[in-house]
């Protein structure tokens, strides 16, 4: 996740101030597996640091601590709808009437999504995700330096989402929507994008490219 955040960082991103929305379908499963082993192997004594790092919002908390960010942060899970849910939360933060920043209002938000391989002992091999993390810096519309604009994710019956066509090896991944969005932005492909790999509810967003970049 740290690499993804670094990649998303631009001259406009203040990590000590930007509200953050973290998303992960399964959270810190590797730490959980370690704790379960400790529980059974060492007579039940557990590493307090590992325990504190096993919460779903560990990444969100550590980023806040590392950057001194005392603002809004959250950590969301919604299976294959995790990416769409994070973007919906980001829209709420940026455009919800009150906004966390009060008078000034929230103007941007860092969305970070990631899932690691589920513990092999719990999930059959063919059902496992590879490690994948992505970060997207979302700003209020009208921002001149934006690479692209997206619409609020909508449900299939409300959108005209194009049929999903797999283009990579991540189509089963819970975070594939973020990868697809970044791929479309980088490779300059506008259009309606499904935010899951075909296993979620079908939330979709329309991507429009900003011409000046």
């Amino acid at each position, binding site marked *: 996740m740290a690499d993804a955040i670094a990649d998303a960082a631009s001259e406009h991103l203040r990590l000590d101030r930007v509200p953050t929305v973290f998303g992960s*379908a399964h959270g810190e499963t590797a730490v959980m597996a370690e704790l379960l082993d400790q529980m059974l192997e060492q007579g039940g004594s557990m590493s307090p640091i590992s325990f504190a790092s096993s919460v779903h919002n560990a990444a969100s*908390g550590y980023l806040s601590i590392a950057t001194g960010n005392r603002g809004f*942060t959250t950590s969301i899970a919604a299976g294959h709808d995790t990416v769409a849910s994070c973007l*919906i939360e980001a829209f709420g933060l940026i455009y919800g009437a009150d906004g966390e920043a009060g008078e000034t209002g929230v103007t941007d938000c860092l969305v970070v999504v990631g899932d690691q391989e589920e513990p092999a*002992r719990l999930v059959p091999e063919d059902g496992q995700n590879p490690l994948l993390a992505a970060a997207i810096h979302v700003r209020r519309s009208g921002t001149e330096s934006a690479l692209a604009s997206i619409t609020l994710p909508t*449900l299939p019956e409300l959108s005209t989402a194009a049929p999903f066509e797999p283009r990579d090896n991540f189509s089963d991944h819970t975070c594939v929507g973020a990868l697809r969005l970044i791929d479309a932005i980088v490779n300059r492909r506008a259009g309606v994008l499904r935010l899951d790999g075909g296993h979620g509810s079908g939330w979709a967003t329309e991507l429009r490219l900003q011409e000046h970049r």
Partner: protein
Amino acid sequence: MGQHQTAVLAALSSGTSMLSGSPDALPFATFCGEVRTPLEALPPHLARYDTRIARFLSHLLLALEADLARTRERWRSSRIGIFLGTSTAGIRNTEMAWRHLRATGRRPDDYSFTTQHAFDAILVVAREMSGFAGPAFVASTACTSGAKVLGSAKRLIELGVIDAAIVGGVDTLCELTLRGFHALGALSAGPCRPFAADRDGISIGEGGALMLVERTGEPRARLLAVGESSDAHHISAPHPDGIGAQSAMASALHQAGVAATDIGHVNAHGTGTALNDQAEARAIRAVLGSAVPVVSTKGFCGHMLGAAGAMEAVLAMLSLEHGWVPKSIGADPLDSELGINVVQARSTITARYALSNSLAFGGNNTSVLLGAP
């Protein structure tokens, strides 16, 4: 505390703690708020999702059904969201599976990570049982989870994405959290005693609470604001001055345009650890002064972790509705150095506003501002 509001109110009114010895065999003493009543199985078509946490949720949804039916009539299903807080999700089942695995080398045949462990399993249950098809997600920010979702629902209603939402939190007791908090030195050997001079830690509880948040309707309370902030200090300990808690409370007041002097009581996070109660008391003093009545309801049901924020928002709402604040159980002898007005006996309130605080691992803080309708 009870399966329905009548029982919960009776417990609050009489000041009866529901905490008792831990149900799990542990190598240390602790007290828990365990749900002891039998829980009904999920409907047959949801049998794959039938876990203890899903049963808590199912129980709450069925209890809310009359209100959900009215909501179904009022709004399109695609415009009704589901936002749930949990910290444990279905890890209780994974613990059992892990034991089986280590003993036999095989996953139990009836274990499924996807339908039992995963955070979104409870979303499937809520969607299926309610028929609501709007945005649905879990917020899992440890002990603020159940309050974070109130903020999400409020913003998305204001944004116009949804008109209503089921919002709340559910969590179950499990060995991993009991042992984890013990490892942190945060668990009391007896019933937790928030704000007491000799407090020595938390008691973990389980259960849940759900609320129906609507754009318009027949409100029992108004969700006026949710202040959200970070300490940026430590992964598992609060900032000693409660600076994140201060800014969460101040933000809630600012968003709603409510004066600090208008707050009639605070349902505090009040876990009963030396550090939390001291930091939170400093924050309350800084933002609201030392006179505002403060109660921790964790002496009744324990710290419900991912469900605590929802549970305590509901308890704050019940106080507004009924005009009294319950006794903060266990606070005698009071830690006078805290300098706050801890409610020592059931007290009448007349003010129309209340704050419900939740503070979490990661330095995550929320303060929910509720108003009488």
